[in-house]
């Protein structure tokens, strides 16, 4: 049984929070660069140029690329042959968030109660933590700071099986159309299909952790991703919603078996600052 200390987990989460805020992954940056080459609209090009300059500047200065350093979504895959030594895992992860957001000068955006007491917790905790037990003797930690501008534009629909592929496409396009310029396009679209209402939303979020633009391993879903990307980019929303050819950089679908009577679909959007960092312990 391999032992991993919660101290190491805390330190890792701390570092990932800071890195994620200031250093856009290269895969996303490359898609933005390609978007600039493709975009023909005046304001679209203007926006992409500023976005790319901002990516470089934030990396150089270790400054957050967006002031909304998000609610911290954390995926933890724990190998079943790992023994976690120390304190409570959830507390260790939240301590990492606390240290990262404080020591990294990141914005604290979490309120303690969604309705009655919207007081800022002051350290961006608690994070939204998804833990999964997997084979092996490692722990994989992925940190996705999720900004509210794009998150607010997500949607879920319990599609009927009879709605089929067309129903899915229609719902995705409707969601992106209604979102317009709000989620800071060009966006990365995460889509979950199948499972139950909870599983489906989790799949959509998990889809955002995939390397940007990497197609689904199943050719049928890879084709659907490509078709949706083309349809979305025909909408004309463009970078920042000012009009243009590039509304989405990529569409990622994740699926799960479902019930005979169901076809849940969840769309979650990530802005152009599609931040995600991971470490394997």
């Amino acid at each position, binding site marked *: 049984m391999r032992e991993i200390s919660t101290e190491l987990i805390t330190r890792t989460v701390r570092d990932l929070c800071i890195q994620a805020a200031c250093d856009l992954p290269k895969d996303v940056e490359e898609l933005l660069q390609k978007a600039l080459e493709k975009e023909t*609209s*005046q*304001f*679209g090009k*203007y*926006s992409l140029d*500023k*976005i790319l*300059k*901002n990516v470089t*500047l*934030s990396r150089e*200065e270790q*400054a*957050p*690329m*967006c*002031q*909304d*350093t998000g609610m911290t979504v954390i995926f933890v895959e724990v190998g079943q042959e790992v023994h976690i030594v120390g304190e409570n895992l959830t507390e260790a992860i939240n301590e990492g968030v606390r240290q990262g957001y404080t020591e990294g*000068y*990141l*914005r*604290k*955006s979490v309120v303690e109660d969604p309705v009655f007491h*919207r007081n*800022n917790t*002051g350290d961006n905790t608690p994070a939204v933590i998804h833990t999964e037990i997997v084979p092996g003797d490692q722990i994989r930690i992925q940190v996705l700071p999720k900004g*509210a*501008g794009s998150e*607010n534009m997500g949607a879920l629909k319990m599609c009927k099986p009879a709605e089929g592929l067309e129903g899915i496409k229609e719902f995705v396009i409707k969601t992106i159309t209604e979102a*317009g*310029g*709000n989620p*800071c396009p060009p966006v990365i679209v995460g889509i979950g299909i199948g499972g139950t209402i909870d599983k489906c939303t989790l799949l959509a979020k998990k889809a955002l952790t995939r390397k940007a633009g990497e197609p689904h391993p199943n050719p049928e879903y890879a084709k659907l991703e490509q078709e949706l990307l083309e349809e979305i980019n*025909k*909408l*004309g*929303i*463009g970078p*920042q*919603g*000012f*009009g*243009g*050819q590039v509304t989405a950089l990529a569409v990622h679908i994740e699926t799960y078996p479902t019930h005979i009577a169901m076809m849940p679909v969840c769309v979650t959007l990530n*802005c*152009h*600052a599609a931040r995600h960092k991971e470490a394997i312990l």
Partner: protein
Amino acid sequence: MAAIKKITTPLTYDQVKGLKAGDQVTITGVIFTARDAAHKILVENLKAGNSLPVDFKDQIIYYAGPTPAKPGKVIGSCGPTTSSRMDAYTPTLLGQGLRGMIGKGPRSKEVIESMKNNGAVYFAAIGGAAALIANSIKKVEIVAYPELGPEAIRRMEVVDYPCIVAIDAEGNNLYELGVKQHRAAD
């Protein structure tokens, strides 16, 4: 792209009249940040008959909540937040003489009507480009609601803050015009 228009605050109606949707502008002078929680308190205060902590006549509100400043810096990263969340409160503030707003994303019909009636303009900054934008912010002080943390009202002195006129005082709307122009034919 046409020449960049330079505007200075306070933003008078005469300056606003000369701005058209799609104009690229830079703003120099004082702007005030206010976002969700601050807007809610401001409007509640007005309803209760209280005066506001800032006189918004001919002023610009920037929908923004910055990251904390690192040592030696005046501010952290500071880009625009989604403006539509403020739509419910905006006509009330426009009624107080508010002349300009900076944010990102489209506005409601009610806000645009109120902008036309009050002679106000809506500027869009590039969402997410927060490190770049912060370079144009030279001085910052919290003037109200410090307990709101990132949502406190801040008075900022800016030099050549870059943005685009998204909706002008006649209601011309870059979000509609631009998208219509680039939507692929069915």
